[in-house]
């Protein structure tokens, strides 16, 4: 797994992709920080983290689009298939590499909180809650992105698939609002990324929300391993 992790990390930072991702993330985080905290004269970072939900939703596919599809297209998956490494270790290595880049990007929010703390009192426990929420959201979206990338050899299709999934996840709350059957509406709401994320932005540290994101990440990583291993039977 370490070899894959190292290789993917190098691939991100030997090409402009890693830098562009981090730069765009910083750009949005910086803009919302300026708008809500500096101009808004507030140490409450809830609005910033709320806005970063949408940004994360649409930026993660850029990070994950090449992870599996590139190997399939360049046939380097053959190198991985013949190596004495399990499919789980391969997928985990790729997932952790993407997650690390994402972590570097979202670390800017901690820097912003540190800047605020120089001028006023910052509630670090709440900020940490926001941060964990955003990290869990990114983990789940990264897992979904890798899975979509494993289904195609075309990076553009993988990215578009990721954007569509993001858009669908955004609409899920609105869809739930249109459903008259209360049980079904409740079920759709339970699947909503936004609902589970909002609790973090309210400063609520709910175990169910953590379990939800961890489960989604686990499920899609498992599906990715299955999609990868399936190539042995094709």
């Amino acid at each position, binding site marked *: 797994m*370490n*070899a*894959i992790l*190292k*290789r993917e990390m*190098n*691939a991100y930072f*030997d*090409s402009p992709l890693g830098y562009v991702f981090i730069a765009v993330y910083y750009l949005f985080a910086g803009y919302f920080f300026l708008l809500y905290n500096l101009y808004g004269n507030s140490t409450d970072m809830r609005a910033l983290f709320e806005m970063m939900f949408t940004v994360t939703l649409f930026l993660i596919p850029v990070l994950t689009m090449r992870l599996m599809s590139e190997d399939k297209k*360049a*046939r*380097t*998956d*053959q*190198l*991985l*298939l*013949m*190596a*004495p*490494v*399990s499919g789980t270790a391969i997928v985990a290595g790729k997932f952790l590499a993407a997650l690390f880049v994402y972590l570097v990007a979202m670390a800017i929010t901690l820097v912003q909180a540190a800047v605020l703390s120089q001028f006023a009192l910052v509630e670090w426990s709440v900020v940490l809650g926001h941060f964990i929420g955003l990290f869990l959201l990114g983990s789940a979206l990264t897992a979904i992105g890798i899975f979509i990338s494993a289904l195609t050899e075309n990076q553009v299709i993988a990215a578009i698939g990721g954007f569509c999934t993001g858009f669908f996840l955004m609409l899920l709350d609105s869809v739930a609002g249109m459903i008259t059957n209360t049980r079904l509406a409740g079920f759709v709401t339970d699947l909503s990324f936004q609902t589970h994320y909002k609790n973090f932005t309210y400063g609520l540290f709910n175990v169910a929300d953590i379990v939800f994101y961890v489960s989604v990440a686990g499920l899609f990583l498992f599906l990715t391993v299955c999609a990868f291993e399936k190539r*042995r*039977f*094709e």
Partner: protein
Amino acid sequence: MIEVSHVSKQYGSKIALADISFSVPGGQVLGLLGLNGAGKSTTMNILTGCLAATEGTVLIDGIDLAKEAKAAKRKIGYMPEIPPLYTDMLAEDFLGFVYELKGLKTGKKDAVGRVCERAGIDHVRKRMIRNLSKGYRQRVGLASAMLGEPKILILDEPTVGLDPTQIIEIRSLIAEIGKERTVILSSHILSEIQAVCERVIVLDQGKIVADDTPQNLENAIQSKDSYIALVEGEPSLVERALRALEHVKEVTRLNEEEPGVYSYRIRGREHVDIRREVFLALAGAGCPLLGTRSAHVTLEDVFLRLVGKKEGTTGRDEA
């Protein structure tokens, strides 16, 4: 060393391999020969664990590949037809990555240095793979397969797309490696198999149609009753005269050697000397026999006969 038992592979309704079995002892250089689509790459992909067999078992050094894939794969170095290379990496970084991927612990720097020297890529190891020529990429692929000095080396069409000098270099490298370990090599280039391999398995439509040494395969169908005759005259007249002979089994017109003079392969019935009969028949038909020589059967003829095509009707080796 390698034991393949009743292995089959189906891609949907297409049968790529149909119940093949063979074993390869340690230290043997085995050639897999076959036309495109004969099942060579599928066999190799199954032997290396890249593909799962629909049925059958593969034992690598006594280890079941399906049950203990990791342990079995550690004994194999594989270079597919198109070497899987990360072209955005330096050659030595890529080999370092493969070293780690294989979980080797013998010392990365030394191991990479050794295979670079062996594969003749020492002077390009600091270059980006995407900037290397096809020949050097092939060598990087070979170097990555050799990393960790696996007991078994599997090479799928290792010389495809290379220029003649590179082909000779790669072949001598394979011959050298073959002195120490088991090598399985696939090719549809017959001269390559003949030059490097001690044993040949001929595959056709997913089945083994022959399994022997190149020499034995040639000897098996080398007929002592077969001749090449140079005859002047109308081909139809010549063929009619020859086919009318009791002991002549087969007549094949080959080439027009001179204006009006054609060469024919004449095959007689077993253990019958047909030369006199042929001479008299041609004299009777008014077609002078200008010369005869024994028909040497090449591995190409053997191969074409085994896969069901008429010998002498296609071009020579692609090399």
